[in-house]
Structures are given as structure tokens and as C-alpha cells.
């Protein structure tokens, strides 16, 4: 455990001594803040108009009209940002040959992988946490429901965690960070839109493709539904990504 902590600490420190984390977090906050602001503005104008008609007014729902689309927008930003956060994890160690230090130290490969993975999760938490602060405004001036919002952020975190599992795997494949980022982005986007293929598929394939798609699982969560299938899906994506990473590192050494 202390070994995982040692690696994690070092990775977090590296994130915040290089510009990567700052740039990724800032861009993420600017974009997500912009989405939040414009959705709120739209919601405001809608409420003004509907204030004249009490019947419609009752149907206004900030959770559905602001938060649900906001989470969808943020998820796209995460799709773009996460490859940039995970790309250096293993690729850079290989490039500057520090992997030789790690693999000749009395720590296991699993501990190295987990340490690095937790460090990237920390960056994700910072991103989502800072973005979540914006909700203070909605709570100050309106009365949204808390549970669906938390559920949406949980969904974003789980999806980001699954993205990072895939990102760390691609980082272990190459010593070029750009290659790692591009591969990760491609894979994530493919998984995102996998459900498109399900329209033309039939029978079991349709279910399989739908199940594998990121989008399908995330949609529920933005609407405040917490389903164990989705939890299991995200966790198995994470475990799958980390397992592949482990296999890549092992096989590199045995080749």
C-alpha cells in the first residue's frame, strides 16, 4: 500500500510541476463553465417567458433543463481532455528511461500501475470538484434536487475513470506521448459511438453493442438513474484497462 502511495504522490507532483495538469484543468473549467453559463441563461429566459403561463411554469425543471445537458457536454470535454492526462503515465517513463528504476525496485508492477492510475483519478477529481462549485449558484438562487446532480457527477467520475483505464493502457504501448493520446482518443470515441452500430444490428449483437457503448450507460446517470449495470460496466472497463496495461508491461519485459 505504501508503495502505491509513493508512486501516486510522485505522479501527482509531476502533474502539478509540469504544465499538463494546469492546462487540462483550466481548459476543462473554461469550457464546462461556458456550458453551464449558457444553459443557465437559456433556462432563465425560458422561465421568464413561462412565468406568464402558470400551467407550463410548473413543468420547468432545472435538473432536466440545465444539468442533464450539462453533464452530456462535460462528458464530451472529458473525452478530449483525458487522453492528454493519461498519455504521459508510462510513455514518458519509457522515453526518459526511468522505467528501469521502477522495475528494478522492490515494488510490483501492479503497485506501479495503481499508483499511476490513482494519480490520474486525482486530477479528474480536481476537475470535477472545481466544476461542481458552480452549483453553489444554482442552490443559492434556485431549488434544484441534490441527488440527481450528485448522481450525474458520479456518472462523470466513473466514466472518466473508465476513460483513464483505457488511456493508461495506450500509454503503456508506446514511448511517444502523442501516439498514446491519439490512440486513446480514437478508442474512446469509438466506444462512445458504438451504439450507432446497434441500429443496424439485430438480436444479441444489438444488445452487446449497446452494452459496450459509453453513451448508453452515461445517459441514464445524467437523468438521475443509478443502475448497478452501469456501475458494473464502468468498473469492468477500469479493471480491463488496468489488466491490459499489466499484460503489456509483462510482455515487454519477457520478449
Amino acid at each position, binding site marked *: 500500500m*505504501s508503495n502505491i502511495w509513493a*508512486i501516486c504522490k510522485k505522479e501527482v507532483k509531476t502533474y502539478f*510541476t509540469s504544465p499538463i495538469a494546469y492546462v487540462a484543468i483550466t481548459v476543462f473549467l473554461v469550457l464546462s463553465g461556458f456550458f453551464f453559463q449558457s444553459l443557465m441563461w437559456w433556462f432563465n429566459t425560458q422561465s421568464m417567458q413561462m412565468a406568464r403561463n402558470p400551467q407550463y411554469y410548473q413543468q420547468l425543471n432545472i435538473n432536466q433543463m440545465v444539468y442533464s445537458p450539462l453533464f452530456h457536454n462535460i462528458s464530451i470535454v472529458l473525452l478530449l481532455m483525458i487522453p492528454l492526462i493519461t498519455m504521459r503515465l508510462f510513455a514518458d517513463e519509457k522515453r526518459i528511461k*526511468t522505467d528501469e*528504476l521502477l*522495475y*528494478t525496485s*522492490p515494488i510490483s508492477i501492479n503497485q506501479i500501475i495503481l499508483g499511476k492510475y490513482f494519480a490520474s483519478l486525482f486530477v479528474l477529481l480536481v476537475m470535477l470538484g472545481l466544476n461542481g462549485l458552480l452549483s453553489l449558484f444554482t442552490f443559492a438562487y434556485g431549488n434544484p434536487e441534490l441527488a440527481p446532480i450528485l448522481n450525474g457527477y458520479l456518472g462523470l467520475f466513473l466514466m472518466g475513470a473508465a476513460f483513464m483505464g483505457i488511456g493508461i493502457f495506450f500509454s503503456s504501448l508506446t514511448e511517444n506521448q502523442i501516439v498514446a493520446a491519439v490512440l486513446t482518443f480514437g478508442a474512446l470515441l469509438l466506444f462512445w459511438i458504438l451504439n450507432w452500430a446497434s441500429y443496424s444490428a439485430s438480436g444479441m449483437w444489438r444488445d452487446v453493442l449497446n452494452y459496450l457503448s459509453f453513451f448508453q450507460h452515461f445517459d441514464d446517470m445524467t437523468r438521475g438513474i443509478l443502475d448497478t449495470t452501469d456501475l458494473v460496466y464502468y468498473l469492468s472497463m477500469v479493471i480491463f484497462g488496468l489488466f491490459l496495461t499489466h499484460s503489456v508491461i509483462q510482455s515487454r*519485459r519477457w520478449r
Partner: protein
Amino acid sequence: MIEVEHLNKKYGDLEAVRNLNFKVDEGKIWGLLGPNAAGKTTTMRILTGYLPATDGKASVAGFDVFEQPNEVKKIMGYLPEVVPLYPDMTVDEYLAFVAEIKQIPSAKRKDALEKAIETAGLEVVRKRLIKNISRGFKQRVGIAQALIHDPRVLILDEPTIGLDPAQIIEIRQLIRSLKGERTIMLSTHILAEVTQTCDGVVIIRDGRLMASGSLVELTASVKDKERMTVKLKSGGEELIPHFMNIPGTEKVLWENDEFVFEWSADKDIRENVARYCVEKELGLIEMKPHMMSIEDLYLKIVSGDVAQ
């Protein structure tokens, strides 16, 4: 302390190490010598557990490198060919990180760090970022990270490569000062490194063992001819036939205004040569024996003149 038996390593079709056997005794500095691409780095990577071997056995301090890698890693310090440094860390931060992953108990980490900084002579740069310090200091940081957990065995891959002559001397002194309680193995393709720092040597070529043993043993085994240089006030090449008549003399050469005598190691002709020169009044001003150097040995071995 370090034992290697029938070690083989293949990278695809390339055989980097073939049937390697050697042994390093405790408390000694041993050199792993060979031309470039001889398999030195591969051998060291196998010993440190970075790479698995295709076949064979290796053990360090009684622990099998393949069966008990963690035990080996705990007692081994390793300086790879490319020093594994994080450029954005300060020297202190870096060594603190290494201390953690080398499993030094947290209570002892601070002392270990101070000791490593002192031994490697890093006081002046300890607060600086690694990317901003000189090559020589980077190499010292590399040695400090190898030493920080007080390992019984040190493996140093080309520790002086890329340094200027003054730095090379410093690093060699540092390595020699570490001898004693530690067993050290260093690889190099520079011969002087071996004669100046090592007690013994393993010479490999194309992944094969060419020779191994202490320097004294090895020098004795290849030394079958003795040589000396003789300088005279007068006389040149025309004297060679006369010298050849001196009993025991096998070869006389005229090089750089000096004579080079060669004879077999079992008899000594020096007295006869001296007497002859004095009798003929040739003006003998210098007689200098040639030591068989490790360089001759190395060249002989590498060019394939000497089998195991």
C-alpha cells in the same frame, strides 16, 4: 556473491548472451569488459531483474534472480546506462522518492538520504532541479540513487561514460571508496577503467565469455613472452644480428630509436644483454621491462587469439 551459470538471452533471433558463466566474490570490484554490443548491458539487466533470461541461472547473495526477484532487488543498487532521472524534480525530491520505492522504513529515510548526498558529494546541488545540473552531477545522482538503501551489491552500467577526464577520476575514486562491505560489478569498454578500479574482470565478446578471473591470474595466464626496451648512446638497426646471438633472445626490433627485445618467460636474458652492451662499449643508457598490460590481454582476447 554474484553467480551466473549457463545464462542465455535471445531477442528474437539475436543471441545477446550465450552460455555465460562467471562468479564475483564478496567485497570485490569486478569489471564486465567487452567491446560495444558485447552483451554487457543485457547481462546487467538480467542480474538486476529488469529483463528475464531466456535460459540459465543467476543468483545474487544466494537469492535466485528469477525465483526471488524482490529479495534481490532489496539488496541491489543499480545504475543503468542511461541514468534514470526525473528532470522536473530536485535532487532531494528525487532521492526521497527513490528511498521510498526502495523500501527504506520511513524513520530511516532521512538519514539514508543525507548519507547518500554526502557520499556522492551532492550538497551543492541538492535543492536544484535535475534538468539544470551538469552531466557529472547527474551521474553522481545516479550513483546516489543506487546507494541510498545501502545495498550489498552494486551494479553500475558504464558509470563514467560521457564524463570529462577530471570527472572520470572523481567517479572512479568514489567507486573505489565504496569497496569493502559491498560487492561491485561495473561494465565498461574502457580498459583503463578496469586496471584502475577493478580487482577482477569478466571479458565478453558477442555475448560469449572470453575470460574471467582476477587481474593477476589473467595476466599470468597470457604472459608467455617477456619484453624490454633498450636505449643506447650509439648504434642502430645494424646491431640487430649481433643481439640475436645473445643466448635466449628470440626477437629484436628497432622502434623509435630503441631496441625491443623479446624472449620466453622461462629464462631471463636481461643480464646477458647488459653484459654484451658493456663489453662492446655501446653506451647503454636505459633498460626498461615491458609489463604485459591488460590492454594487450584485452586485445588478444577480443581479437580471438586466446581461447578461454
